[in-house]
């Protein structure tokens, strides 16, 4: 994406976000802007605060302080009903483990249709049609629409979770290690698919990963975290090809050895 054509107003602005667990720092203070159609990668070793940050942004965790500005308002001050509605409509969240993001006892079609029904869809035929269409878009045979997710492979489950999240056309998608538990070849296919969907739908994405290959492929911009803090940020290629911070240099060099 050519960011010089991006509209100048951020879709999401984060200011001075801090989350502690008792005396231990989870993350923060963190501030950044995300622009429409932009994919922001958050990288860092295990325990660096990536998941804490993402959970605070997505409303799964209450931060100690800070603001998360969306369409002019602070999401953190929204009433719970409105916040949950946002999470089901304009926002979406893809969990690392598809079991956390899917209803394992419900068919693939029911999983994809849930957000539609939650938004008021009441025409079975249309819900099913949309579900079939979305299964196709994430490369699952629509003929398996009535199968339960447990009959699917890990990669298929993750693609199903993505379809379930994107079916209502969200604007902002959070992803926590979406390729985490998958084989390398399966990861590559999923990344290709994600990249295509992000482009087609013009999604804004915040993606957390410890895998630099993932962000190299997907992210326009990177934030490197260590010990709860952002130690470096910038355009992905710049950060990866010319890392300034010693920690980033270490991260990059260790991936090159792989």
């Amino acid at each position, binding site marked *: 994406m050519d960011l010089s054509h991006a509209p100048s107003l951020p879709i999401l602005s984060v200011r001075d976000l801090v989350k502690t667990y008792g005396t231990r720092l989870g993350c923060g203070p963190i501030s950044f802007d995300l622009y429409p159609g932009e994919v922001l990668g958050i990288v860092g070793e295990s325990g660096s605060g990536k998941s804490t940050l993402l959970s605070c942004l997505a409303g799964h965790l209450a931060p100690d302080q800070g603001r998360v500005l969306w369409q002019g308002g602070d999401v953190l001050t929204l009433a*719970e*009903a409105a916040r*949950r509605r946002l999470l*089901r409509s304009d926002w979406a969240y893809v969990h690392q483990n598809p079991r956390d993001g899917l*209803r394992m*006892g*419900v*068919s693939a*079609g*029911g999983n994809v*249709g*849930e*957000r539609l*029904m*939650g*938004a008021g869809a*009441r*025409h*079975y*035929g249309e*819900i*099913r049609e949309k579900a079939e269409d979305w299964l196709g878009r994430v490369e699952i045979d629509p003929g398996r*629409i*009535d199968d339960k997710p447990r009959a699917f492979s890990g990669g298929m489950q993750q693609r199903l979770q993505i379809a379930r999240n994107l079916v209502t056309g969200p604007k902002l998608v959070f992803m926590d290690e979406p390729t985490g538990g998958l084989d390398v070849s399966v990861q590559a296919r999923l990344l290709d698919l994600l990249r295509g969907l992000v482009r087609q739908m013009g999604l804004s994405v915040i993606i957390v990963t410890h895998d630099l290959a993932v962000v190299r492929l997907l992210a326009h911009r990177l934030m490197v975290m260590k010990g709860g803090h952002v130690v470096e940020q910038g355009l992905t290629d710049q950060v990866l090809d010319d890392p300034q911070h010693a920690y980033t240099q270490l991260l990059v060099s260790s991936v090159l050895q792989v």
Partner: protein
Amino acid sequence: MTSAMTLAETSFNFAYLDEDTKRMIRRAILKAVAVPGYQVPFASREMPMPYGWGTGGVQVTAACLMPEDVLKVIDQGADDTTNAVSIRKFFQRTSGVAVTERTAEASVIQTRHRIPEAALTEDQILVYQVPIPEPLRFLEPRETETRKMHELEEYGLMHVKLYEDIARHGTIATAYAYPVKVEGRYVMDPSPIPKFDNPKLSGNAALQLFGAGREARIYAVPPHTQVVSLDFDDHPFVASKADHACDICGSATSYLDEVITDDKGGRMFVCSDTDYCRGGQ
């Protein structure tokens, strides 16, 4: 119910429960009436019968009964099943109220699995025995989450259940405990009545009270409350019954049980509401 019979010799408070307990249950009932379809927690008591026998309904009935009441108890529409007979006897012994099998004569009707065919009046209370009060439980096992869904009116999941039904069976196969929305607000499990009875929930003149003993919940549909069965635009709710007339009374409109009459495949259809069958048509 032998335990109730041995207890019969001893002396009871009217309708078995002590007055404090009845007051506590009445408060829960009043709250339930004030918020139609909302499940009110209450301190469910041990009753001298197993949970499967409708201890929730029994506690609600006990809290409602007055000495001048006339009680009818039905199970699957019949007054003479073991469950109905035992509960009726229990209240006869513990309260001395008059009992009846006639729907029209009863002021309190405790029921399992049916709504009487005859139209009820504003002078009647219908008490349902409820095994599982939470309609969302099937897809969401976490109680904290289902409460939140009710609070925030997040009912998409209820339609997921109906979606799954159609996906699997080609039609909404749910035949009992068919989910409803009460007065445009709370989604409610009407207890395992056949969906044929669902239309009678709506606009009913009687006060309808639902008691779940094991799960300790009471909820209510006050008189003349709107109750709508959930469905899809292209799969509308249908209050179906066996396509037959009653082989005893000839009624073409009452809900029928299929009865096997011999071991050669003989069968007949008869009204499930035995009082209606006797007096009907």
